[in-house]
């Protein structure tokens, strides 16, 4: 029992932590690619400086995303060996393909990009960062394909002889309807994250009136990316809500703490009081909104937790099929609230900076700077919601989470691992944040002496050479 708790805690902590860095990697690689493309096309110096500046921050972040990602691949086998045996025939393939298609692409071309400023022609060097950006998106697709199978298993059959789920249709796994909604939802969320990140850092410099030529375009890019991203998040989130209602109605019911089936169902903005469905509570409700989110119609029927629990007991045998409701309810709201607030800040920012204006008001900049926490909050609670509200299942309808742990790994061992990772990640968070703040406050690099233009013809393999354009 303890082993289950520790294994779940570790998975939750390491995954949420990993996903603090992933959205920045995905979004910022694209932003850097865009800025470098702008430099390549216009030749304007401030775009080059912006590319270098944001590239540096991107790399500080990337390193953390990379190393915490290794843990993810290992811990399925370490803590969840029964799960791995049961779904490996389906679940392993996207992971392997992710490594082969995405990780190689990202890591190799990032190495070329970091060290290749004076080794590659401008065009090839630019291509490298685009390939990195494409790699990050590919990676997201395959890992979300794996996760979507857990939310809505498709393309498999249960083989009672082997006691495992077996792949029957890989195309179905890769076009899982949950995946088709959750993939854009995640990627647009990453744009929001990178957008807010650009906005916040640029705001810090603009507040002090520094490096206007670099940070004014960066700010605009950030604000636009945030709003475009949020638009995408909204549309895909709406779609995801309906798919979720169809594939995991319990999750939608838990998101509203809706105990009894309702038609039409209202959506509560918040609740004061208990969420266990026993006592009346104080709520601000929007009539029909939950029906709309779930079904697309304002008077659609939304199934309640109690009815679904009874239905699942019929279907899957005796048991409690309710997730922990407060986490689902508040996670859902915090996700939406934080994301919307970020978009609101961006909208205001776009208005305040229209036509090249720069607000004089210090607290306006302060809000822009501190809004940087919002997308991270939204992402974290989004994942906590989507994973916790799937419980008690690890693969919905197919395998319960408690059946997935490694049966012969002692609880003390898992606890050791949990403590080690928590401590290590905590220490690294301090280091990373410190570096990020330090480099975010630096001025963008000036043109180095001797120029940075590509010199692909090089001077052969001569040992005596000018210093590297970049070195660790």
């Amino acid at each position, binding site marked *: 029992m303890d082993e289950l708790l520790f294994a779940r805690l570790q998975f939750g902590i390491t995954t949420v932590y990993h996903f603090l860095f992933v959205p920045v990697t995905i979004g910022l690689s694209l932003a850097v690619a865009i800025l470098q493309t702008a430099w390549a096309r216009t030749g304007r110096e401030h775009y080059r400086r912006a590319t270098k500046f944001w590239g540096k921050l991107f790399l500080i972040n990337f390193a953390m995303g990379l190393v915490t990602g290794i843990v993810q691949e290992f811990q399925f086998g370490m803590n969840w060996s029964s799960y791995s045996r049961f779904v490996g025939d389906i679940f392993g393939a996207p992971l392997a393909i992710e490594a082969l298609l995405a990780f190689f692409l990202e890591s190799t071309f990032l190495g070329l990009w970091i060290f290749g400023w004076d*080794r590659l022609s401008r065009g090839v060097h630019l291509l490298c960062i685009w390939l990195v950006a494409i790699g990050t998106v590919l990676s997201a697709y395959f890992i979300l394909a794996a996760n979507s199978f857990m939310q809505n298993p498709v393309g498999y059959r249960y083989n009672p002889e082997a006691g495992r789920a077996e792949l029957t249709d890989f195309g179905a796994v890769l076009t899982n309807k949950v995946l088709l909604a959750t993939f854009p939802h995640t990627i647009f969320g990453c744009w929001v994250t990178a957008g807010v990140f650009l906005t916040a850092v640029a705001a810090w410099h603009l507040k002090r009136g520094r490096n206007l030529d670099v940070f004014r375009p960066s700010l605009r890019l950030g604000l636009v990316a945030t709003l475009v991203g949020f638009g995408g998040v909204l549309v895909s989130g709406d779609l995801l809500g309906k798919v979720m209602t169809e594939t995991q109605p319990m999750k939608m019911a838990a998101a509203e703490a809706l105990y009894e089936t309702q038609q039409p169902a209202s959506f509560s903005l918040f609740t004061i009081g208990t969420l266990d469905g026993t006592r009346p509570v104080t709520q601000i409700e929007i009539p029909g909104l939950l029906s709309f989110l779930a079904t697309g119609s304002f008077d659609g029927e939304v199934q309640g937790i109690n009815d679904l629990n009874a239905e699942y007991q019929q279907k899957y045998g005796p048991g409690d099929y309710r997730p922990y409701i407060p986490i689902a309810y508040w996670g859902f709201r915090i996700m939406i609230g934080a994301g919307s607030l970020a978009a609101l800040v961006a909208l205001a920012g776009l208005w305040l900076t229209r036509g090249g204006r720069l607000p004089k008001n210090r607290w306006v900049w302060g809000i822009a700077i501190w809004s940087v926490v919002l997308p991270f909050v939204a992402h974290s609670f989004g994942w906590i919601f989507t994973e916790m509200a799937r419980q008690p299942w690890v693969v919905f309808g197919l395998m319960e989470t408690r059946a997935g742990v490694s049966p012969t790994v002692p609880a003390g061992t898992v606890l050791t691992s949990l403590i080690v990772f928590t401590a290590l990640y905590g220490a690294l968070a301090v280091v990373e944040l410190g570096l990020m703040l330090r480099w975010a406050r630096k001025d963008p690099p000036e043109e180095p002496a001797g120029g940075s233009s590509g010199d692909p013809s090089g001077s052969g393999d001569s040992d005596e050479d000018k210093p590297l354009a970049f070195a660790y």
Partner: protein
Amino acid sequence: MELHDLWFVAIATLWVGFFFLEGFDYGVGILTRALARDDRERRVLINTIGPVWDGNEVWLLTAGGATFAAFPEWYATLFSGFYLPLLLILVALILRGVAFEYRGKRDSERWRGGWDLCIFFGSLVPAFLWGVAFANIVRGVKLDERHEYVGTFWDLLTIYSLIGGVTTLLLFLYHGAVFTALKTAGDVRERAIRLAGQVGVATIVAAAVFLIWTQTQHGSAATAVTGIVAAAALVASYLLNRTGGRDGWTFGLSGGALAFAAITLFVALYPDVMPSTVSAANSLTVENAAATPKTLGIMTWVAVIFLPVVLIYQGWTYWVFRKRIGLQSIPAH
């Protein structure tokens, strides 16, 4: 040859690639303390692998992912069974990876010193533990009838597995030294050649003991051949390093030794993927550990199409960064 046999070969190939490539990364990481005398020399070493270490590490991630996909039972048993060694490896890889990126980001000796420790131990620990792990895989571990590991952490530390660990550690260190000789210029290079000569003898001894032990306990005619090729490549590399002037060959032969050592282990293992010391009936084999032919078929197509592409662009990276690095190549912090 059935698909699961092919995938056994594929997994072995990924590990061979990992040993060959990440092997010198680990070696260079250890050399940052064993060879470099100051920060500038350390940076020479780190920058020989700077553009490529991350891509090299992906061979490990791909081997892990491919094992999960092609042999789910093997993946589950291996990763849950070798829990604590893998935990140590993970911590090492995390610190090492971050260290490369972060050590130059602050101009402080204490800061760099801390990360240098991470690079050193982050390279040393996995270099040793991979050998321990592979020796245990070949030797077999306590697996029950569900294929679950029922031994303890201490059961993994046998004389044989410790020799395995020392062997990979020395092989990687030697490989890193001859890589350094190939990729650097000046005094660092001279000392790397000398160090390779000193480490080389110990490496040959350790590898010989480990391979002979493997041969007597788990060997076949095929492993005798691959083992001899590995040993011959290592000795040839050592001799070439002594005569000097053929850095490319010295390095290639060292890589060949690593590759054939790994191949020897996989050939010794086949058709098991993880033998059980409790009962042969509990052993994991290419058959009972494998995914379905359906999954293996899909994976085969993916690998056939994309692995060559990866090899091409990764190979190209080495071409782009082919220049030697000397003290004068290192810009100021």
